[in-house]
């Protein structure tokens, strides 16, 4: 095999492994979310299927497979089918540039634990997340239903507004690392937990948390699906596996946001105390789960905010704060103490 073919084989293996891990993590998250939420609300949650109800995602999957695919009579056939596909493709594309470990030495080769190591990794993520709104907009418009249309409209305005804050919250981190590569940004935080961007970029981190929550449509920013006012928002008319795909895209986006948060702000695979405990991809997994738990915790704690509050907060608070953060970080980088 030539070097190119070897590279190709390694990449295909990495893609397959990551794809299946993500599918597993998605079904695990549907279970964990329902259980944790239930305990926060003094309920039990799903506990009948298998030990502790752990087989609930399997049961849900089988059920969804056998449901009938229903499309409304007035729906736009092409876009109605295309919407879940667009959602899932953009969701899986963005995780490709997120590293989950440094470089490992296997079979006499250096293998980086990341599918695509782009020089413009962070920008690529930004580009894909700006495309991810189209799946929702398409779904909302194609179903030809006033509730879905409202959901689609809201999501296009919301995701567009918070994307700006999201991108600007990364500017400080990029300046400190002097690179767009995600792996470089992680390496720039080496040397113990007090070097992590979580401490060096407090404002940026807070803006990222808020904007990422809005970007993945989680409570308190789940306006596009607000079930108390819009039935189920943009996916009201979806059933069976198409619904499952939309749901999967949502969870994968949440996983990406958590993975990115732990890489950019929580030091990725770096150990908090490198003198005593070595760096390892396990740290990344631990931080990922902490972030995922945080999303669920947020959903169990904070009520949904009103739509005008959402837009006001995005444009009048988050964006100016992000600009201020970029300015301050720039000053610190350019004028050394």
């Amino acid at each position, binding site marked *: 095999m030539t070097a190119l073919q070897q590279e190709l084989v390694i990449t295909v293996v990495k893609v397959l492994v990551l794809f299946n891990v993500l599918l597993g993590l998605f079904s695990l998250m549907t279970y964990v979310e329902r259980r944790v939420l239930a305990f926060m609300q003094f309920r039990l949650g799903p506990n009948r299927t298998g030990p502790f109800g752990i087989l609930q995602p399997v049961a849900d999957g089988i059920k969804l497979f056998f449901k009938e695919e229903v499309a409304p009579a007035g729906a736009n056939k092409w876009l109605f089918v295309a919407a879940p596909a667009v959602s899932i493709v953009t969701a899986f594309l963005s995780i490709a540039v997120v590293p989950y470990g440094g470089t490992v030495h296997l079979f006499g080769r250096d293998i980086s634990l990341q599918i695509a190591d*782009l020089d*413009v990794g962070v920008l690529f993520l930004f580009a894909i997340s*700006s*495309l991810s709104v*189209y799946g929702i*907009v398409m779904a909302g418009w194609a179903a030809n239903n006033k509730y879905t249309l409202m959901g*689609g*409209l809201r999501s*296009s305005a919301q995701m567009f507004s918070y994307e700006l804050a999201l991108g600007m919250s990364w500017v400080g981190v990029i300046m400190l690392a002097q690179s767009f590569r995600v792996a470089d940004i992680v390496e720039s935080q080496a040397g113990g937990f007090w070097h992590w961007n979580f401490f060096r970029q407090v404002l940026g981190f807070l803006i990222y948390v808020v904007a990422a929550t809005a970007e993945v449509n989680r409570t308190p920013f789940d306006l596009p699906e607000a079930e108390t006012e819009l039935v189920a928002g943009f996916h009201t008319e979806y059933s069976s596996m198409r619904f499952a795909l939309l749901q999967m895209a949502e969870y994968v986006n949440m996983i990406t946001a958590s993975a990115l948060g732990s890489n950019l702000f929580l030091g990725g695979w770096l150990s908090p105390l490198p003198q005593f405990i070595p760096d390892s991809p396990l740290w990344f997994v631990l931080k990922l789960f902490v972030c995922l738990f945080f999303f669920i915790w947020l959903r169990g704690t904070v009520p949904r905010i009103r739509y005008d509050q959402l837009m006001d907060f995005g444009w009048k608070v988050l964006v100016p704060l992000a600009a201020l953060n970029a300015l301050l970080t720039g000053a610190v980088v350019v004028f050394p103490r």
Partner: protein
Amino acid sequence: MTTPDAVLFYVFAAVTLASALVVVGQRNPMYSAFALIVTLCSLSAIFGLLGSPFIAVLQVIVYAGAIMVLFLFVLMLLNVKAEDAAEGSGSGILKGVGVALAAMLVVQVGIVLQHAGRGMAASGFDASARRVAHVLFSAPYVYVFEATSVLILTALVGAVALAKKEL
């Protein structure tokens, strides 16, 4: 000789042209908007193939990501239905002008293609973020660049002032 790059180039070029035709030919504005997004994305793939991922990513962020979302938002807000075919296709003069313009375009494209080289465009040119920033923020371009940003800011403030009289 067909390298993988060349094959990919032809695929994306075909997608770009086909979706661009849909943009122009489609009566339903929503279809046109979605087709334009496809055009912009496959154009960005061509930039990527030419070895400038930075430009490719910018293309998606600015055009496919930001501008098209606003287009779609307005289209959905007004709930525009398919254009009325009867309107605007009446006058013979307009048709004549259209045909003349199309003929001119064909001639121009022909001239350009005749003078263009046969090989693929130069690949691997340096369009990294660092390089682009250096060019943008140094002597000849920096004034134009800053003037443009002031212009955009002015337009922004003007739009807000017009839209919201009692601020």
